[in-house]
Structures are given as C-alpha cells and as structure tokens.
C-alpha cells in the first residue's frame, strides 16, 4: 500500500498527462499526432490536373508595376502555378506583350501555366479561346471563365457548363471559375470537371469571402473534389480563412499585384496559405461561450 501523498501525486500526474494527450486528439478528430520536425514546411502535397504540388497558392500575373517585380513576386510566393491570358493582337517579334518579354519571364519561373479565357461571354467563344490557349501555352489546363454580368463579372453558370462539357470531351483539364452555388457546381462535375474554383467575391474587389457558409457547404458536400477559392481575396487573413475552411487552394492576383509592395505581399500570402492549411490539418479548437482556465489549478483553490 502506498502512502496517501504519493497516490495523490500520482493521480494528479496521470490526470494531467491524460489531458495533454487526449484533448488535442478529440478536437482534431482522427488525425496523426506526430510532431512536426522544426522548420519543415507543413503543407501536405495535393494533386491537381495530373500534377502533384506542394504549394496551394496559385498566382495571377497581371497588373504588376513591372516585369521584374512580377518575377520577384512569383519567387517570393512559392507558387507552382501561375495564370496567364491571351489577347487578340498581332505584335511583332517574340515579346508578345507591351511589358517586354513577359512570356519569357513566366516560362523561366518553371511554374505550371494555367491559361484563362478571360473576357469570354459565351461557351462558343470560350471553347475557341481554350483551343488557342492549349496550342500557345502547350498545356491541357484551362481556367474556364465565361462571364454573365458586366458589373460583377459573375460567371454564367449555363454557358460555363456547356463549355466545360465540350472541353472535357476534347481532352482539356478544365478549372472552371464558378459561383459558390452547390447545384451548379455539381453540374460542372457532371460535365466532367475534376476541380472547382468558386469565387470568394467579385474579381479584383478585395472583399474576401463574402459567403463563407456557401463555401463550407461545398466542402461538406464535395469532400473529394479539389476546391480552389478564385477571386475576391483582399488580405492574407481571407486566404487563411479559406484554407481553415478546408478548401484546397487559393488563386489570387490583384491582392498581390496592387499591394504597396507586391513582393512582400506575395510572401505574406504564401505564409498565410501554409498557416491556414496547417491549421485545418491540425484541427482548430471548438469555441466556448465562457472562459475555460488554461492553467490547471481548478480544484486546488489558492488560499493565501
């Protein structure tokens, strides 16, 4: 038989130890509890359009102060996918942009190219532009944009589904820029899309996630579909929120390009997206209405 003092101390040790070991497991669900080695990048890899990626940040290339700043921002962001566009023009020589050798800079980054169909209003236009993009950028990836409203640049769900169906038949990996409406998203999946890119807010508005509830529903109802929030992100906090909701990635352009310092902002978003993903994987604790003492003194009143 042990002395009362020792037994009490042992019980207390056991109780505290159980708290420490079990509580995070309960909060996070059935997740692995292995410690992260120090300084290891936390993000798990993911697959999209037949590629395995480590970065969950997709970055647009438009509107930067200079090609050099664009180049530095891409490097600082850690992105592995950049979006590009096409314009109806006939410029002489290899540099196809007023910015100089834009395309050369982009190719030199080694990032995967995701051409868009920006500016298209009908499925027919978008299909033709996608065919041109596949040839010009030598990729089957296409960010399918078909806009239905000039003021909000809201995707037209009907034209989008028509275009997606045709492009999937032609062998494209279609990344549709879509609204957060669950049923139109399901129709895009029916059309053969393997990925969805719901908007957070109107393009370039910087409003953040105007309808996080809709994104939460998409995540819950489409657990196995890669979901990338595309458009409307303003600050890294918005990107963290998207990642904590369990979305798979974030695509943005203006929030970096129009920052006072785009290179630093690219880094800030890169870190935020990593942090948000790691938080999702770790399992954010449940909110409580009242205080819950963190220092384990409950039941041991201090009487001075």
């Amino acid at each position: 038989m042990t002395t009362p003092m020792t037994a009490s101390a042992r019980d207390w040790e056991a109780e505290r130890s159980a708290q420490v070991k079990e509580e995070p497991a309960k909060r996070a669900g059935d997740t692995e509890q292995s410690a992260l080695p120090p300084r290891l990048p936390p993000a798990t890899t993911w697959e999209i359009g037949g590629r395995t990626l480590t970065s969950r940040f997709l970055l647009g290339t438009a509107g930067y102060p200079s090609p050099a700043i664009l180049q530095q921002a891409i490097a600082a962001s850690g992105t592995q996918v950049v979006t590009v566009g096409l314009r109806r023009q006939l410029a002489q020589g290899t540099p196809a942009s007023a910015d100089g050798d834009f395309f050369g800079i982009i190719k030199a980054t080694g990032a995967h190219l995701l051409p868009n169909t920006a500016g298209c209003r009908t499925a027919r236009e978008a299909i033709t532009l996608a065919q041109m993009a596949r040839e010009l950028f030598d990729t089957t990836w296409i960010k399918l944009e078909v806009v239905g409203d000039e003021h909000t640049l809201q995707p037209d769900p009907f034209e989008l589904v028509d275009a997606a169906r045709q492009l999937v038949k032609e062998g494209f990996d279609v990344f549709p820029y879509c609204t957060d409406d669950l049923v139109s998203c399901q129709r895009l999946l029916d059309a053969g899309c393997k990925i969805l890119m719901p908007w957070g807010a109107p393009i370039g508005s910087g409003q953040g996630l105007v309808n996080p509830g809709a994104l939460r529903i998409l995540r819950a109802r489409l657990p196995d579909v890669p979901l990338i929030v595309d458009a409307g992100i303003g600050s890294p906090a918005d990107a963290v929120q998207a990642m904590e909701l369990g979305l798979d990635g974030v695509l943005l352009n203006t929030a970096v390009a129009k920052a006072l310092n785009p290179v630093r902002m690219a880094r800030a978003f890169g870190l935020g997206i990593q942090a948000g993903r790691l938080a999702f994987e770790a399992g954010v604790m449940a909110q409580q209405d009242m205080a819950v003492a963190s220092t384990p003194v409950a039941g041991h009143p201090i009487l001075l």
Partner: protein
Amino acid sequence: MTAALTVPVPETSTTTLIVNGAAHTTTARTLAQWVEAQGLAGDTLATAVNGAFVPRAQRAQSLLAEGDAIVTFQPIEGG
C-alpha cells in the same frame, strides 16, 4: 499561240481579309503564308478563321478567300 494561253495566273493577285477587325490586303494564299508574311514565327500566335480555331499544323491547308475574318491571339499576363 497556245503558249500565250498557258501563262499561269499571276501569284500577285491580292485578297482582302478582315484581320482582328480591320481590313487587310494580302497576296498570301494560305493562312501559313499569311503568318509568315507578317514576319512572325508560327508558334508566337494562335489563329482562327471565321470564328473557328485553325491549329498550327493545318495553316498550310487553310486557303484564304476574299472577306475571310482572321483573328490572332498572343500570350499576355492574366489573372
């Protein structure tokens, strides 16, 4: 007298096209010849004639007719 009848059609006959929305006169007979005449490498642009995409490999077979509308697209930055 038969020799005069075998003179080939002059290669310099011109065709008027609509290129990216503007009138454009060319002596090119095919889309491939037209691209070359613009001084552009074939892989620096994508082409469509009368709204239909014409892949690079088919430009040499794409005959141009009076009034055809050509559009050309090139890479730019994008979001």
